[in-house]
């Protein structure tokens, strides 16, 4: 899941080398933390959070395949 978010985020931002993703794995739910530089924050959130929402939708489709849940946190 971590790789998935990293791949998507790197494709969206201007500074892919500064994308950092970490994953806190729980029994049922994992939390995926995405960090980008300040300049790129808007790129991963999008207008009215549309990009962030799209990433969460993709994430939940991918994790439902594994019968799990994943939460995406975008960290400033």
């Amino acid at each position, binding site marked *: 899941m971590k*790789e*998935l978010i990293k*791949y*998507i985020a*790197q*494709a*969206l931002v*201007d500074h*892919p080398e500064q994308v950092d993703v970490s994953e806190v794995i729980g029994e049922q739910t994992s939390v995926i933390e995405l960090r980008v530089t300040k300049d790129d924050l808007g*790129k991963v959130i*999008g207008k*009215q959070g*549309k*990009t962030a*929402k*799209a*990433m969460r*939708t*993709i994430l939940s*489709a*991918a994790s*439902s*395949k*594994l*019968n799990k849940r994943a939460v995406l946190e975008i960290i400033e």
Partner: protein
Amino acid sequence: MKDFMEIEAKTIDEAIEKACREYALPREKLNIEIISEGSGGFLGILSKRAKIRASVLSIDMDISGPFHEMPRSVSKDIPVETQDVNDIDIDMAETSRKMIEGILSRMGFPFPVSIKESDEYILLNIKGDGSGILIGKGGQTLDALQYIVNKALNKNGKERKRIILDTENYREKREKSLVTLARKLGEKAKRIKKPVTVNPMNAHDRRIIHLALQNDKELVTKSKGEGAFRKIIIVPNKKG
């Protein structure tokens, strides 16, 4: 155990869950075929139940099979082709295909993607497994993927083509059901001589409704609301 069973539920997700329970198997051990996609119905009419056909995947059809057949390079860390994007000669269709395949393989769906290109758009067709998991409720997963790919490829602001994502013929089916819905609601508006409101929809779906009714002289279509809540109102012409 029967070869397959047909299950009806309010939504596809619910039906799949039911199937898993019936067979007592996880989702990936089942072969799910969607017979009809449910719709919540509009104003209580037209509500359709979702129907699926579920069967157990045979053991030799191991799910891990296709995944391992994928070349290792695809699912491993490929640097995102940012340097290519600035290249004048880049093939946008090929880049978008690589991108979507990269996302899919990381989602655990290493499905092949084919390209159809026209002057206005690039159509990427994902050859799915028939489970509908890539489509999602009301097409939301497919739309999310499409949105991300468009965002990623159009980020440097140059005039670029629109990318349309499709799988299992979903776009065409959706368009047909929207046109049918538009006609039904149009008839209703004429019959009751009052405006009929359609559920909130995205821009693409609204466009289909507008186009479906534009030649009907007895009806006018308008949009109302903001952002994700924007919806169409079908108004019967005053003379009618």
